[in-house]
């Protein structure tokens, strides 16, 4: 065997010498590396045919040896992200090879945000993915919407997959610091392998391993403060201003009812049964005449208060601590590796007595037992405690109280002299439960309740997943994986025995226990091979999932110990204790094939058939699938010479995906509730079902491109059309039928949109870099077909989701309301639009001619289209409901990311934006209402109200509830939902290597300071359209908290 020596030089495409490039003989694996000048020298045997050059950040390069003795190579720089492994579906790939749409977010990006639930950290990271933080309660899972709104009444949530297993546990049980990467899959090629559950996107979470690392210990600690930084609604805070407005309201009422002396009417009624209770008069005068100057309509100078009522906000909200620490241990050798972590988090909300604690531990082990047998085991355990006080959607809501209570009502009870009353039970002062005439939230005090009562959930959650991989040959292997998620969630509500709702029962306790057992078993055969430039991967699998959630409740009252949480502490146990289980099953067979020619052309196809226990026999199974193709144009000769185009890939995919998540477990069964009447069974009136119900189907098409232009710009643009038919639609029936909803597979919904994700590498120097990224989406949502009525025609409109109306041609968030036309300058009352059928031909609107519901009217009277006339009415019930041309869907939404660094410093800034949608600001409507005085606070915008004849304004007069429907649902409170939010800033500093090396036991030290949810600009203070799917506000909402924290990370 002849041996000879080959020498050569390796350079980059600019001719610079490249050191440390691996040069290997493909056939034998023997090789060397280049020296600092880029030169190498390698002895080759006769059977060597190909040399392979490879280096980090460069594309591998192969060259035939032939008879050459000198081989020079020029390597082309490669975007690192392209070769990064992306976990998709049941296999891994690289971004380059993937034909679908996947965006990976690495663990470091996620952990730069101080949120306790990984779903919240996704905000702004991925185009077309919307993260809706619905509550400031720490630990709350965000609502995620990927690519529009996929269903009308069915499911719109994505599927979570953790370490290869569809996940049914709670996302807040996952410690974000255990996450190595998170991938969002958006299109059919990416998601259809999850067939049954991928229609609304898939979020694949991969936890860390110790693979390829030398043993390490990593410790990080964070300490921060939570606060309410985003402004709340601007409301009247001065009791004097409030009482003056109240006086004016009664005055206007006097005018409205034709009272001869409205000033006197107001003076005598201000503190009376018809106004504010005399008990709540905080001033040292007894009547309206002594309090209010009727000309200025303000409190007379010199009037003093008996006492200063507390600002409720001061006692409801606090700055509170957030403490987090994690230890991670990892390492491994060629055969085995391990990752172990322990995490502790205590996150207190800014609202009193709301917090989240999490203790978590994880072990991930991988072990190659034999060359043909590998195993892995991931186990994680979480114990978490949530205290949710003050957040119910009722009079226990702290937020309702803070924003809506008129400013003269005190928090603490006052005696006749105005002094606070000591509390003999809990110490301090007694809270005012409003039993002496308070007209807001009387007989309750949400802040007292939040302090004295318990609303607590403790969950123990275990998630494990064990895999055995058997390699039959180099090319064929079998995976057998069992995933289990188990939790027990114990929710306890304790209402104290001394004050509030349970005082008359001497306290009460309610328990709810939920237990989940979700088992997932996967068997998968995988075949890989390469024939010349062709490589293929084929897999075929069977998967089965069993889900069972058992719920039990019990309650009792008359407590022995005020603080005891167990039912033995209750003397009387209610007979309503019960338990039941919800079960569902899924079984699937699927196969996938991926083909790659020369790393230039990529094809993939998958097919999956799923059976769901939610549908009954004959309707159980659905078959789904997809095909995808990718083409890296930049590898083609005709583009090789265009220097600016560094990388260019085109991809397209089409697929059909199913969904069944959105319907109840037993939707196909007629439901009969079982009740107790005289201790005998009582079977409820049946709720008929639709036994024909089956899979919802989405047909998804996408085209997209990934590109890199020179060294300045990387990005991707994708366009998709998603048509969902067999829609799971709660078709409304006329209530006279006796039942009102029939869940059907009908109607057709189309979402189409374009997404972009661009990063400009503005500066990329050795010590200094600046990247600016912007991502965004524009999409439309359109109902192409409404479900058929039982009589066979398409429903003209569905108003069950008011203020939105669903009709053919519209979106699922188009406003169908009465239109507010402003205020009559003559007397300050509201006007609304009325369309009328001019039956008497007098060209004027007369009562009785009004059309109340335009779509239904046109449906019944098609000939009248275009003949109706338009006018205004002052009677709300005469006004017409119609599509006013506004929608909750924005024109453009996404995020800006600025990422810069200098030496060891790095700074990340993330803004979220949304432009062009509208939302119903219901909380504001409540603050602009015209209820009885003392019944609710007002927004400071009430200062713009109509006050005298001739005032031109769009805020109607106050009239102590005399004018009806002032704040009723109408276009008046439909508000531009544009916003710009500063979601995250993080400044980090990594200690220089030179310094670290002197501390020889430490590998890495970094410190950071960061802020989350710091600033929001929206149409008005308090209105935060980013907190709801449709942007609407709620008076009970716990607005997301703001966090400022600092931390330290050390790796040993």
């Amino acid at each position, binding site marked *: 065997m002849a041996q000879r020596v080959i020498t050569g030089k390796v350079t980059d495409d600019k001719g610079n010498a490249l050191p440390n490039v691996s040069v290997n003989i493909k056939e034998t694996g023997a090789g060397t590396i280049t020296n600092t000048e880029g030169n190498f020298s390698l002895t080759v045997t006769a059977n060597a045919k190909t040399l392979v050059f490879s280096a980090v950040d460069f594309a591998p390069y192969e060259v035939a040896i032939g008879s050459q003795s000198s081989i020079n190579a020029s390597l082309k720089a490669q975007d690192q992200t392209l070769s990064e492994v992306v976990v998709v579906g049941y296999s891994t790939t690289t971004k380059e090879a993937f034909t679908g749409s996947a965006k990976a977010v690495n663990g470091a990006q996620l952990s730069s945000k101080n949120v306790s639930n990984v779903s919240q950290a996704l905000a702004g990271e991925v185009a077309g993915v919307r993260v809706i933080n619905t509550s400031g309660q720490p630990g709350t899972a965000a609502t995620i919407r990927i690519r529009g709104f996929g269903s009308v009444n069915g499911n719109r949530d994505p599927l979570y997959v953790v370490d290869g297993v569809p996940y049914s546990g709670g996302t807040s049980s996952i410690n974000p610091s255990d996450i190595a990467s998170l991938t969002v899959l958006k299109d059919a090629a990416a998601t259809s392998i999850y067939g049954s559950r991928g229609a609304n996107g898939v979020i694949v979470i991969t936890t860390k391993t110790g693979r390829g690392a030398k043993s390490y210990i990593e410790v990080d600690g964070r300490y921060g403060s939570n606060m309410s930084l985003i402004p709340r609604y601007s409301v009247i805070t001065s009791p004097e201003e409030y009482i003056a407005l109240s006086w004016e309201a009664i005055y206007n009422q006097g005018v409205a009812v034709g009272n001869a002396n409205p000033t006197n009417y107001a003076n005598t009624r201000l503190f009376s049964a018809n106004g504010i209770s005399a008990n709540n008069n905080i001033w040292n005068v007894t009547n309206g005449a002594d309090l209010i100057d009727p000309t200025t309509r303000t409190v007379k100078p010199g009037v003093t208060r008996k006492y200063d009522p507390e600002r409720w906000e001061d006692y409801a909200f606090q700055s509170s601590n957030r403490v987090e620490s994690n230890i991670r241990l990892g390492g491994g050798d060629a055969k085995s590796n391990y990752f172990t972590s322990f995490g502790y988090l205590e996150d207190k909300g800014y609202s009193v007595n709301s917090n989240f604690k999490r203790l978590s531990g994880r072990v991930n082990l991988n072990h190659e037992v034999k060359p043909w047998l590998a195993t892995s085991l991931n186990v994680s355990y979480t114990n978490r405690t949530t205290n949710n006080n003050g957040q119910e959607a009722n009079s226990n809501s702290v937020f309702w109280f803070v924003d809506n209570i008129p400013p003269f009502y005190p928090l603490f009870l006052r005696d006749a002299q105005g002094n606070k009353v000591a509390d003999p039970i809990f110490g301090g002062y007694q809270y005012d439960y409003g039993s002496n005439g*308070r007209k807001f939230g009387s*007989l309750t005090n949400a802040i007292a309740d939040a302090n004295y009562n318990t609303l607590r959930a403790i969950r123990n959650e275990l998630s494990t997943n064990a895999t055995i991989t058997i390699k039959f040959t180099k090319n064929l292997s079998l995976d057998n994986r069992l995933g289990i998620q188990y939790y027990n969630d114990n929710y306890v509500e304790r209402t104290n025995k001394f004050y509030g709702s349970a005082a008359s029962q001497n306290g009460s306790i309610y328990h709810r226990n939920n237990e989940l057992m979700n088992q997932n078993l996967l068997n998968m055969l995988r075949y890989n091979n390469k024939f010349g430039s062709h490589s293929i991967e084929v897999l075929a699998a069977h998967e089965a999932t069993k889900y069972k959630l058992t719920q039990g409740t019990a309650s009792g009252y008359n407590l022995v110990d005020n603080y005891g949480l167990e039912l033995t502490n209750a003397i009387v146990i*209610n007979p309503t204790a019960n338990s039941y*289980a919800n079960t569902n099953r899924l079984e699937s067979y699927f196969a996938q094939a991926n083909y790659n020619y020369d790393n230039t052309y990529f094809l993939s196809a998958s097919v999956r058939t799923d059976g769901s226990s939610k549908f009954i026999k004959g309707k159980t199974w659905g078959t789904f699938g997809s095909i995808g193709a990718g083409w890296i144009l930049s590898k083609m000769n005709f583009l090789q010479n265009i220097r600016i185009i560094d990388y260019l890939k085109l991809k397209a995919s089409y697929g059909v995906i199913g969904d069944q998540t959105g319907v109840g477990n037993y939707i196909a069964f007629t439901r009969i509730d079982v009740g107790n009447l005289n201790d005998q*069974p009582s079977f409820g*009136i049946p709720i008929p079902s639709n036994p024909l119900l089956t899979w919802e189907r989405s047909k998804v098409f996408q085209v997209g491109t990934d590109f890199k232009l020179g060294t300045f710009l990387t990005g991707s643009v994708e366009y998709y059309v998603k048509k969902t038919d067999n829609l799971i639609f709660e078709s409304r029936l*006329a209530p006279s039928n006796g039942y009102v909803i029939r869940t059907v597979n009908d109607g057709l919904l189309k979402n189409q949109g374009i997404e972009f994700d661009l990063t400009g590498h503005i500066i990329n120097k050795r010590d200094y870099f600046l990247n600016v990224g912007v991502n965004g989406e524009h999409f439309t949502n359109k109902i192409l077909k409404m479900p058929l009525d*039982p009589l066979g025609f398409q429903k003209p409109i569905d108003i069950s989701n008011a203020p939105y109306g669903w009709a053919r041609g519209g979106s699922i968030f188009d406003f169908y309301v009465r239109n507010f036309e402003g205020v009559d300058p003559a007397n300050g009352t509201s006007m609304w639009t009325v369309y009328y059928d001019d039956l008497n031909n007098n060209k004027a609107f007369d009562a009785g001619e009004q059309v109340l519901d335009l779509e239904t009217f046109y449906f019944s009277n098609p000939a009248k289209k275009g003949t109706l006339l338009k006018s205004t009415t002052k009677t709300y019930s005469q006004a017409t409901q119609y599509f006013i041309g506004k929608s909750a869907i924005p024109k453009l939404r996404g995020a800006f990311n600025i990422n810069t660094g200098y030496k060891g410093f790095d700074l990340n800034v993330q803004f979220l934006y949304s432009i062009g949608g509208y939302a119903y600001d219901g909380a504001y409507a409540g603050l602009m209402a015209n209820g009885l005085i003392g019944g609710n606070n007002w927004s400071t915008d009430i200062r713009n109200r109509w006050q005298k004849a001739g005032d031109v304004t769009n805020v109607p007069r106050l009239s102590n509830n005399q004018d009806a429907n002032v704040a009723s649902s109408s276009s008046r409170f439909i508000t531009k939902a544009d916003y710009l939010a500063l979601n995250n800033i993080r400044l980090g500093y990594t200690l220089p290597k030179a310094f670290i090396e002197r501390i020889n036991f430490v590998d890495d030290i970094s410190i950071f300071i960061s802020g989350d949810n710091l600033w929001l600009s929206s149409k008005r203070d308090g209105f935060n359209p980013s907190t709801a799917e449709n942007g609407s506000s709620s008076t009970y909402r716990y607005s997301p908290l703001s966090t400022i924290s600092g931390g330290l990370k050390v790796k040993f």
Partner: protein
Amino acid sequence: MKLKYLLSVVAAGSALLTGCKKDFLETQPTEFITPDQLGSAAAQDPKLLDGNIAGLYTAMFTVGIGGTTRHDDFGQKGVDIYSDMLSSDMVLAALNYGWYEPVARMTATVDFTRNEDYIPFRYYYKQIFGANTIIDILGGTDAVPTNPKLKITMGQAKAMRAYGYFYLTQLYATEYGDGTKKILPMYKSAEPIPENINRPKSTTKEIWDLMISDLTTAISYLDTYTRTSKDQVDKNVAKGLLAYVLAARGTPADWAQIVTLTNDITAAYPKTTAAQLVYNGTNAATAGFNSVSTPSWMWGVDLTLAQDLDLISWWGQVDLFTYSYAWAGDPKTIDEGLYNQIHTDDIRKAQFDPPGGGLEASYGYNPGDFDYMPVNKFFDPGRVDGGQRNVVTDLIYMRADEFYLLNAEAKARSGQDGPARTALTTFLTDRITDLSYINALSGQALLNEIYLQTRIELWGEGKSYLAMKRNKATITRGANHLFFDGDPFVYTDPKLTFVIPQAEVVNNPNLDK
């Protein structure tokens, strides 16, 4: 290498153990029961079938039965509050949480988008659907069951169907008129076939004919039936319902028949005694309208902790002594004008807290806080303000006194003023000390007095609105109303009758066909 294959077989075997089982994809609910599950259970234990008709009675007080999560949606008694407020005898005396405001200010009755129009509509049609389901199982409207037990079930189901239609006609139609007006869709079967879906409106005559036929059948089928609890419909309840149905039409023959029907009922049931009518300081255990065992109660339900009712209930809305709205700032009181018409020597005047004083002082409230509240008529026996947390005080649907009064009314309308005066006097003897004034009444004045006594006797029981309609009355709101105080309303005023809700108009294309 053999181990490799062995392991593969084990792995594949585990798949067989789970997924490949034939019934793997079949699961059954446990939170509720399906018709199949019920059928199998009943095959073993036929007694269970009684539970079907019980479901209709349970629906009468089920929270949310009107299809909403509102706190005024709890079946028959929820509707009773609506109708008492529309008739103006019940006053929503203050607004705090604000339930019932749109009813009290009559904006709901003219606005078909309001839930107040939807809730009763949904509730009664649901009852009709439930009754039809049972009637279908027994062979349909025209079937005559031979099995005595099934006959009773059929009788009860038909009575409940008539009950549903009766309230619908009262709430959603102005009056019977000449019988030709199309008012409401009518369903006689729940079988899911096209002619039973989205029915067009039927005429008043068609609906009355069905109600009368159903109730007549019910009376006959229930003739020898003795019920086990007062929540069930028996012969006398059916007679009471039929009397109301006929009275709402009001032909001379109807009134004659009502005399007979009410004679039967009054022979079977005593009237409510003075000690049961009003709290006198010592009779908390017998008064309070909170016990179904009261002998005069014909139809009502014994509530226990098992029904799990709390503030969302009739008691929560009306009773000061229950933890809920009446106590927490939305009191329901008697119309001042009606209160003033109660004679001072009428024991029923004491059912209500007098203006400017009364019970408040002993409870530490300010004078006036309880004014006109029915604190001595309806109460939880504990009599602690805001005291009853889980509602176990019973609900009344019908009591004999209604028919003592209707008997007098029927006689008066049949031209028998003398017997009418006697009936009225007999009824009022233990209520009013000086009844001599009755002897001077005749004709319309006598009818007016009977109407007035009906409103007084049955205040807060959901009967005043029915009386207003059949008396074709003009009501005038008293000074303590928050809205329209002093204003008169004729019974035909659109504000006094609900409109068919938008959900029906939008989803029933046949409605006006």
